[in-house]
């Protein structure tokens, strides 16, 4: 084993592999930093260039890129509250509040230190775990996958926000949204209302970017401040050093998160999507003082950022050893493997073990190099938090909308992002937590399929009590819920703080959100009555069986709280005026109006005109900048759209009425 590890290390350093590894790292940093791109897009673009290359440099290039996207994605998660990739969603919960408090450099320092640590420890853990990997992976069948999804969702549902009821209800809402489109088990489309765009279901990336990104940009625009609400206290280097010290302080959490990342990462299909949430949930559960989670607790950055890098090496093993890719990214790596004349299988853990180790080494080395580079750049990047917000909003909105556009190159992606942005804004103002909604959207299809497969393969109920791992996970779910009910593990934001996720108290804004969700549930229930196939209706009905009573209880609570608010005010209208003022509704609606106008212009003249026009108009009206600044910014935006998204990414822009 040790000999194979050393041979693998020598392979990883054989020339010209290091050169290609560096190239892959630089590209991975760029792809991870731009929201919406993700490692799979980069790998797909790079794969054809590796066809003619030797095995070692080809994998150095691909693995360099694959490994570091989940390091670089923390830039937008921490700076803008927008997940750079699907693996960094949990980071925003505490990373962005830290940036708001002027501590972005500290968050970067911690994030990059643990990213490097996670990458290396993940690789080492993998090496010592090779003998038990096959039995471990085989122990997880479809019932275990289903239960693990339920556990992840339960943890996030009860951990984020003040209200357990709202956390679980909004998770049900998210699960219901995943039932839009074709049901895999029957091939029958559901809830698509004759709209072809909905046949494939709601795309995840526009939803994530809209739900988290648009409300934060809206807030920056409305408040007119910089991302950081306070002036810089110290230099970037000091902040980064503080972040690194934080990692030492929380070293055991870092190690436990690396363990979670490595072993959950090995589970094909589930690992990448859930690993950061499970690590975040563990950080909250294991903390004595939970009051700062959601308001800028550095442990909320350390745990997910360790886990999402540690999982990369773990995810490689099922791909090379069993030919089971767990994601599009690993599927492309599998393709690269066979193109290089290698065959995945037990040979990769015996005869070709040095090569397998060289891949694991390359992931570990790439993580360390990327973390070092990003730590160096972080001394400059953190300064963005102190730039006037009006200069940030148009540029980031452009990148966000183009990130959403990558999903299907359809204007429907923008509408989904805007709709979810509006929902996200109302949820944020009304004290509804957003993370359970996102995780439900990520896990919904997996849960439905694994549930239905479990009942087909193992019978209707037997799998619920006859499989030991399922029973253990059920107990964990039960314990999580009981502890949450007793308020033991739920993070409790300070009473005077409304900054945390789901912490806002504004019942008159919460009420419309509750009514919308209740209406969606009611309409879905009515539609499911007409489904002819049992399997088509099964999952929506199961969700509604939980969701409908919960939403009814929340409705009652919101009505009572709203009545209380009205009674405490001078009049009904005074209460509403106060609620609207508190939520800064008029200015927020004006911002949405700006976006709608830009959408309209896109239909007429296309994105290459509409987005630069939005940038210029925003800067001159909201930011009160003079026309030379607006013009220069708009020109830069047009160039970015044309060069990066048009020429390099080959994205198909919207066909406009004027220019086709």
């Amino acid at each position, binding site marked *: 084993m040790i000999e194979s590890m050393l041979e693998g290390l020598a392979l990883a350093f054989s020339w010209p592999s290091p050169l290609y590894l560096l190239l892959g790292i630089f590209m991975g940093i760029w792809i991870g930093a731009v929201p919406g791109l993700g490692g799979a897009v980069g790998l797909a*673009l790079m794969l054809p260039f590796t066809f003619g290359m030797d095995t070692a440099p080809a994998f150095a290039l691909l693995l360099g890129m694959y490994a570091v996207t989940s390091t670089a994605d923390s830039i937008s998660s921490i700076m803008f509250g927008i997940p750079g990739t699907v693996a960094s969603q949990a980071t925003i919960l505490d990373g962005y509040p830290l940036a708001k408090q002027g501590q972005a450099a500290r968050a970067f320092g911690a994030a990059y230190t643990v990213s490097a640590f996670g990458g290396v420890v993940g690789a080492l853990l993998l090496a010592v775990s090779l003998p038990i990997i096959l039995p471990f992976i085989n122990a997880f069948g479809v019932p275990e996958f289903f239960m693990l999804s339920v556990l992840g969702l339960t943890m996030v549902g009860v951990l984020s926000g003040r209200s357990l009821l709202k956390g679980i209800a909004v998770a049900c809402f998210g699960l219901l949204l995943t039932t839009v489109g074709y049901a895999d088990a029957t091939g029958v489309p559901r809830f698509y209302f004759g709209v072809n765009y909905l046949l494939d279901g709601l795309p995840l990336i526009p939803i994530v970017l809209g739900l988290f990104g648009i409300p934060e940009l809206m807030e920056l625009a409305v408040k007119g401040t910089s991302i950081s609400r306070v002036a810089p206290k110290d230099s970037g280097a000091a902040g980064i050093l503080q972040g690194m010290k934080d990692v030492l302080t929380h070293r055991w959490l870092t190690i436990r998160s690396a363990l979670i990342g490595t072993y959950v990462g090995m589970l094909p299909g589930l690992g990448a999507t859930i690993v950061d949430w499970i690590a975040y949930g563990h950080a909250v559960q294991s903390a004595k003082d939970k009051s700062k989670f959601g308001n800028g607790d550095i442990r909320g950055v350390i745990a997910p950022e360790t886990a999402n890098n540690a999982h990369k090496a773990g995810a490689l093993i099922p791909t090379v050893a069993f030919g089971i890719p767990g994601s599009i990214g690993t599927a*492309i790596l599998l393709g690269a493997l066979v193109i290089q004349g290698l065959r995945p299988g037990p040979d990769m853990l015996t005869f070709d073990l040095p090569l397998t180790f060289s891949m694991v080494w390359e992931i570990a080395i790439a993580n360390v190099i990327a973390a070092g580079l990003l730590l160096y750049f972080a001394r400059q990047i953190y300064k963005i938090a102190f730039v006037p917000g009006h200069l940030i909003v148009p540029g980031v909105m452009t990148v966000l909308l183009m990130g959403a556009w990558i999903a299907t190159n359809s204007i429907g992606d923008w509408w989904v992002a805007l709709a979810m942005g509006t929902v996200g804004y109302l949820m944020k103002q009304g004290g509804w937590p957003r993370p359970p909604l996102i995780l439900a959207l990520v896990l919904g299809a997996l849960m439905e399929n694994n549930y239905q497969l479990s009942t087909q393969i193992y019978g209707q109920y037997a799998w619920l009590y006859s499989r030991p791992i399922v029973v253990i996970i059920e107990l964990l779910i039960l314990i999580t819920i009981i502890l949450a009910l007793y308020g033991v593990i739920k993070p409790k934001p300070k009473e005077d703080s409304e900054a945390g996720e789901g912490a806002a108290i504004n019942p008159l804004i919460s009420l419309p959100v509750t009514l919308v969700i209740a209406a969606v549930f009611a309409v879905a229930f009515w539609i499911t009555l007409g489904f002819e196939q049992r399997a088509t209706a099964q999952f929506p009905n199961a969700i509604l069986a939980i969701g409908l009573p919960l939403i009814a209880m929340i409705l009652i609570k919101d009505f009572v709280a709203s009545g209380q608010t009205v009674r405490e005010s001078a009049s009904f209208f005074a209460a509403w005026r106060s609620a609207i003022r508190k939520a800064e509704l008029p200015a927020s609606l004006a911002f949405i109006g700006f976006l709608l106008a830009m959408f309209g212009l896109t239909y007429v003249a296309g994105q290459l005109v509409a987005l630069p026009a939005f940038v210029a108009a925003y800067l001159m009206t909201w930011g009160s900048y003079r026309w030379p600044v607006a013009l220069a910014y708009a020109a830069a935006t047009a160039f970015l759209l044309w060069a990066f998204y048009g020429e390099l990414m080959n994205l198909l822009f919207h066909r406009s009425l004027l220019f086709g």
Partner: protein
Amino acid sequence: MSTGRIFSLLLTASVLLSVTGITPQAQDDYFEGETITVYVGRTPGSGGDLAARMFSRFWQEKIPGEPTMVVRNMPGGGGARVFNYGAEVADADGKHVIFSPTAGIEAVLQTPGLRANFSEMPFIGGLMSPNMAYVRTEKVTTPEDLLATANLRFGGNSPIARMDLLGRLALDTLGVDYQYVTGFQGGADIFNAARRGEVDIQVASLGQYRFSIEPTLVEQGLAIPLWHNPGTGPDGEPYALDVASDIPSFEEFYERVRGEPPSGPEYEMLRWVMPRVNDIVYAAMAPPGTPHEVVEILRESFAAVTEDPAYQEEARKMYGFVLPPVGAEQGTQLMQSLYDVTPEVSAFLTEYIDQVR
């Protein structure tokens, strides 16, 4: 010839040229310096996307004038959106081509979302993606055991998925006692479940078989191959594929275990479905109204790629074999046959699929 007649002839010729867009002399340089956009109805990194990207690299070199080919992804509508775009929106000038996994079963079943009529879109060329069936050896150690073993589990994606339909029709023709387990998200998921013993039988692409199933299951004694789904010749008769010569075709397999040629209503339906949904998996088509001369250039260059040794070498690396090509004439006929569905066939298929929903 009078000046007026000459003038009217010139006018007529110029009108014709402006309508067709090219002249015979101009064919060679029609694409010179141009960009051809290749639309794929799948996400970046998916099998369909990688197939289109790989093929396009060779295709652009075979087209006179050596235009640049740019692949653009247009997923959505269960794969139907890209064909709707090709039929309704894309310019019919040869510079816009659809090259995507076909939606043959969707066309036959008239599923929601597919508005394009494939028979109206000029067929340029296609590639077949062969597939095969295997079974785990835990319950079935020889092909003959397949008929004697009860309650085998056949794993699938969806009742309307191509390989699920082919697998069910084949198993029913054979009279195998099996349970159809559906809802897996792709072939890799089913293979993983087979490895864990949750399903016994899978119909998998030949590529997946060569690179994942054969080394990790078959060579370890954990599974045996059963049959491959054959091609259909111009005479309508099935023929065994060279690229899967180590695995019997379904007809050969049936004769081995049953001692007679296959027959029965399920087999008749299998024969009807096979060419329509299985003989062309990746199809290159042009928008309706694309000038015939331009389509011919694209057809000739497409066919030239499939014979190019460099392409074949790369295809062998990528799939383990060269995807059998489908010519323009055969492809055009197959696309037209998608709409040649009798009420009896439609009723049989609808009822057959509804049985497992």
